[in-house]
């Protein structure tokens, strides 16, 4: 259960980045989370509600894109998506694959904001 510390870091990073957009209102924060990242999206959302309280992010939505695991198969010479995380084998030829190309991501992708100063222009 390290979701709360991860989300606290998300809230801090996004809050810092808002300094460049004074008066902007945050509508949503989008994350990219790999299927093998060992976090539970529902728990991240729950923690987001708590961690964003009293910050400029309060009331905004947390959107999470879950990325499937992609392995590189040497014999096939291809990067291929595998189903689930119970067996790390090439879906085409069945060869064991230890070369992971996607699936561990824990990233802040983007922030959706509403600019307040637009009205003045």
């Amino acid at each position, binding site marked *: 259960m390290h979701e709360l510390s*991860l989300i606290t870091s998300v809230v801090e*990073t996004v809050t810092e980045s808002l300094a460049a957009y004074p008066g902007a209102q945050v509508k949503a924060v989008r994350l990219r989370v790999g299927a093998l990242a*060992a976090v539970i999206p529902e728990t991240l959302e729950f923690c987001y509600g708590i961690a964003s309280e009293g910050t400029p992010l309060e009331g905004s939505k947390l959107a999470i894109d879950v990325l499937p695991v992609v392995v590189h198969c040497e014999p096939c010479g291809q990067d291929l998506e595998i189903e689930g995380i*119970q067996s790390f084998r090439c879906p085409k030829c069945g060869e*064991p694959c230890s070369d992971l190309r996607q699936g561990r991501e*824990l*990233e*802040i992708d*983007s922030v959706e904001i509403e600019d307040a100063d637009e009205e003045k222009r």
Partner: protein
Amino acid sequence: MTTRIVELRRGILKKNDELAAGLRGRYAAGGVLVLNLVSSPGTGKTAFLERTLKDLKAKGARVAALVGDLETDNDARRLASSGAPVRQINTHGICHLDAEMIGKHLDGWEDVALDQLDYLFIENVGNLVCPSSYDLGEKIRVVLLSVTEGEDKPLKYPTMFNSADAAVITKMDIAGPCDFDLALARKNINEIRPGIRIFETSAKTGTGMEEWLGYLAEARKGRG
């Protein structure tokens, strides 16, 4: 009002990753091989490490250990019986060690200078989930699994097993009474992390320790 998307594209663990990169540089500069030991609570990390420290010391190697627990310094006191310098890290409720904790405990460690060590072991908090996300700058992540835990543990905790560089099966001396299916355990580990080195050990009888120590010596030579 206009809505717009601001792209950030930043790792959530960026701060930890940067600190870990700094640690990796310090380890390399000191010429010390660093290993991060992870497992469930009760797997026998401490007993395995105690044996490893004693056996390495007997071979003349310079070793030290950092040991993480939520509370108590019981493990540090146990490990200190090996004669190696040991420092306890109490996380007070946090379920994993992070790079910042390691850095802080290396800094204030009077008995230990990294360039005076051959091996530094970090015993993580007993937890097969959260420590997988936190890079401690280690060269080798060792996942441990005991014969009392069930052969399907790798399938239940794929993230940790997939991120490991070596796997150690502990308590082999009681594999029989536990009806432990070694072939199945090995197959499951390989399914999650194809090609990983697997060691079958008993800290009590010393089974498998020579092979493990041989691996450590090779890894140290291969360093850098």
